[in-house]
């Protein structure tokens, strides 16, 4: 007896192999994009362009300015000469923040007084504005602590030249805090979500447009055989992408990998299966390739970035966003991929995620199979 699934797999594979441009694109594009984004997508808010309007021009004000430029957070862009220039600098986006130092800055401080310093922050990129004000607070607090302990010492207090509370930070998993270590595994997840779904979203609807779908309608082939036969070659293609992306992160980006390759591969396989299934559902339900493509782009491109936990931990999201992330397979695999890459966690730790992805796969394929009708209309 011959297997129908094997026949469909063989046929699909051959078709993919016969369009070399498409095949090359399908394999190369994720790698190219991951390379580009791995290099370019830097979420660290560092070296923010900042300007000063220093009306005091004293050694103390320079010291104050230095405390900004000395940190890795800010980069000095220039000095404003008047308030209109301050406005213009913010308006054009040349700087993200301007610190306005009042004329009596050093006089007041030397006199043991409080000095208001105005910091104007560009709020259009909201999250960055929040970070900027956090940075400013951190720098000011340090500066103040210095001022104060100096002042206290001056007045004969037996304070060591140290702040009473110090923070000792310890970074786990990624001690050097290199962005690539978290970004690149993140993109591995995003790519394996977006791509396989997109490829799969065309496979059935294409046969509908061409009319070859009748071969399935009019033969004794079972619906699950069609869905499985269509899925396997594309799962294979996506697995190739996975290996390439994995090699890319390990050898080109030199991302630390502390976990088990086997567990990651098993998780990736399950995840890819989910994503292919998602594409097949779209393909089964659409009538035209254009609609299938648009739906996949619109519904997966940015949500997979936003809600997968790629940029911010899911735990810090709004409850409604957490709900969305819970139904996106990427958010499960994101945790697994980063965990296995950086935290070296084993299979037992991810049993619940494996289970969640398995449930997702079961649901998606059930929809694809029941949605595929061997009839017209």
């Amino acid at each position, binding site marked *: *007896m*011959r*297997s*129908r699934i*094997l*026949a*469909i797999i*063989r*046929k699909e594979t*051959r*078709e993919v192999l*016969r*369009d070399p441009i498409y095949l090359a694109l399908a394999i190369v594009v994720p790698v190219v994009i991951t390379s580009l984004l791995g290099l370019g997508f830097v979420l660290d808010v560092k070296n923010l362009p900042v300007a000063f309007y220093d009306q005091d021009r004293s050694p103390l004000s320079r010291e104050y300015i230095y405390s900004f430029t000395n940190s890795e957070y800010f980069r000095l862009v220039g000095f404003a000469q008047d308030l209109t220039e301050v406005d213009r600098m913010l308006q054009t986006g040349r700087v993200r923040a301007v610190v306005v130092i009042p004329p009596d800055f050093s006089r007041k401080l030397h006199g043991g007084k409080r000095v208001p310093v105005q910091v104007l922050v560009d709020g259009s990129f909201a999250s960055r504005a929040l970070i900027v004000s956090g940075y400013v607070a951190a720098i000011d607090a340090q500066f103040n602590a210095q001022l104060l302990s100096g002042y206290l010492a001056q007045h004969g207090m037996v304070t060591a030249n140290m702040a009473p509370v110090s923070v000792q930070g310890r970074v786990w998993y990624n001690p050097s805090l290199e962005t690539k270590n978290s970004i690149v595994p993140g993109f591995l997840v995003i790519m394996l979500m977006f791509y396989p779904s997109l490829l799969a979203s065309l496979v059935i609807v294409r046969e509908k447009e*061409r*009319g*070859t779908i*009748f*071969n399935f*309608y*009019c*033969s*004794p*082939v079972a619906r699950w055989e069609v869905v499985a036969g269509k899925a396997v070659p594309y799962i294979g293609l996506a697995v190739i992408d996975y290996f390439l992306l994995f090699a890319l992160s390990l050898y080109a980006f030199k991302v630390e990998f502390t976990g088990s390759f086997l567990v990651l591969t098993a998780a990736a396989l399950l995840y890819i299966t989910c994503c292919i299934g998602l594409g097949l559902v779209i393909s089964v339900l659409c009538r035209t390739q254009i609609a299938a493509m648009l739906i996949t782009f619109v519904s997966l491109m940015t949500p997979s970035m936003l809600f997968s936990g790629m940029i911010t931990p899911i735990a810090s999201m709004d409850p409604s966003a957490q709900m969305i992330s819970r139904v996106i397979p990427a958010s499960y695999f994101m945790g697994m991929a980063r965990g296995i890459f950086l935290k070296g966690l084993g299979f037992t730790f991810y049993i619940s995620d494996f289970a969640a992805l398995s449930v997702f796969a079961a649901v998606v394929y059930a929809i694809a199979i029941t949605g595929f009708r*061997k*009839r*017209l*209309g």
Partner: protein
Amino acid sequence: MNAQPVIEARSLYRSYGRWRKKVNAVRNISFEVGRGEIFGLIGPDGAGKTSVIQILAGVLRAQRGVAFVGGSDVLSHPEAVKTLIGYMPQGLGANLYESLTVEENIEFFRDLRKLPDEAFQKNRAELLKMTRLGPFLQRRAKNLSGGMRQKLALICTLIHLPNVILLDEPTTGVDPISRQDFWEIIRRIVEERQVTVLLSTSYMDEAERCHRIALIHAGEIIAQGTPESIVGQASGQYATIRADPQPAALNALRGIKEVLSTQVFGEEIHIRYEGNLEEIEKELMRQATFVRQSSPQAPTLEDVFLQLVSDTARRSPSLHFATAHRRDSDFPIECRGVVRSFGDFVAVDNIDLRVRRGEIFGLLGPNGAGKTTLIKMMCGLLEPSAGTILVAGFEVPKDKDRATAQIGYMSQHFSLYRDLTVRQNLRLYSDLYDVESAKFSHLIDPLGLREFESRLAGDLPVGVRQRLSLLCAVLHAPAVLFLDEPTSGVDPQARRTFWELIYSLSRESGITVLVSTHYMDEANHCDRLGLMDQGRLIAAASPSALKSESERRSGRLLAIYGSPLRMALDALHTGFPSATLYGDVIHLRTLDPQFDEQKVLALLNRAGIREPRVHRVPLSMDDTFIDFIQTAGASHA
């Protein structure tokens, strides 16, 4: 034939859409097909043939009625039926995967059907031999010609030895040689294995090869029975008239009460009439036309069909344009040494051609002969690799912007917007050509488009689509009209109307028409024919001149009858290796008819063939064409 029918349809009913837009595709259709029978569903596009076949194949739900295939209830257990049937959807090789090779396509269908190896090998070898596709096993489906594609599609449909074969318009768009092969395969399979075949077609000559047929019109069966019995239902008489000048004769005929319908075939006018032919002839003479010849003819199935659906038959249309000013040229189409190559492949090879003003020039050739490439170059869609093309006096594609107003083009594939209505498509083209709708609105009725005006172009029957395409191509009153296989897949009634339109454009408005086709019967409509093969123009002359040249070179045509036919053919092959089967007739070309007639009869008698008969028949365009191609091929090799 067995008493128990293999296919049984009772009171099938199917409609599409809802409420106001409801279309009844199948209305109360009932028929039975017995084992070993070839049953044909004949009717125009949109008649409901495809829906009936799809219902029986279990892919379309019927809203009412009962259908059994091989004893299984299709409507309640469609999956049970699917193991029994082989279904071939409409369209040239529509079930094939373009990027797979012939071999791989066949294997896919084998596996889909889980066919055991032994049966597969035997069946595969047999089918490949019959279709002569053996040498092309490694070729990809997309590189096959239309005829080869369709034969491969048939192999794929038959590979699992189905007992019931459902074929939806299997020969539409296929060249005559491949069509002949196709029928031969069907006939052999039915003969050898007693399979049951249900097919649909819009070719009347093919209907005659079925055991029984049903004429379908607007979702209903209007006649059912053997082809002969249906022809017997014809009323009125038929005749062929040759008269000069033809347009005047046509007008006169249309005015005569006894003449029920008219149709132009090149120089001939076919009429259906009542009463006396001589009276009609006299009347013509009275109206100052010279009748060269008039002869009565036996009605054909096509005639009967047209007569039965006459309630929808339209008055013969007349398309007349107030022709715009155009650069005068006696030869609106002129090609000098035109070559077009794609890489190493020469698609059009050094063609010289001139078409006179008002002439209908037919470009004839098998799929892949280069017809489409040539037409595209004349329309300015492709640049020639060498040579010059002048259309309406303008060189294309250099002067394309000025030539476009003089060019009308109807491409091989339906190329209007499917998601726009008829009215919206017309509006678009009138805008594109900057023509007021008043200039062409009088054509909507004669083209029978009025009732379809608010329908989507994609939902139209093929025949209506073609008329719409034609209107879009001519609404700016072009000097030259290019039609690339305009009637591919169009039913006879629609084709007849279509040709009348072209004829009237050419005769009444002086539009020069260049039309490509592979329907040989249509070739007769043309004033002059160019035969194309492998990129070359191997002959260009009037249809009758081509026929007589072929007769002079390869001899007269003998039609040989006898039974059993298969044995008769075998017997003939001992003396005449070139004898070929054509439907229920064996064809043989001879340069010495008198002598060979005797020899044929002798051979048949010796083989014990019952009722042997030999007739000299006029050469059909098919035979002429095949002869020219073979001669050219031989001289080429």
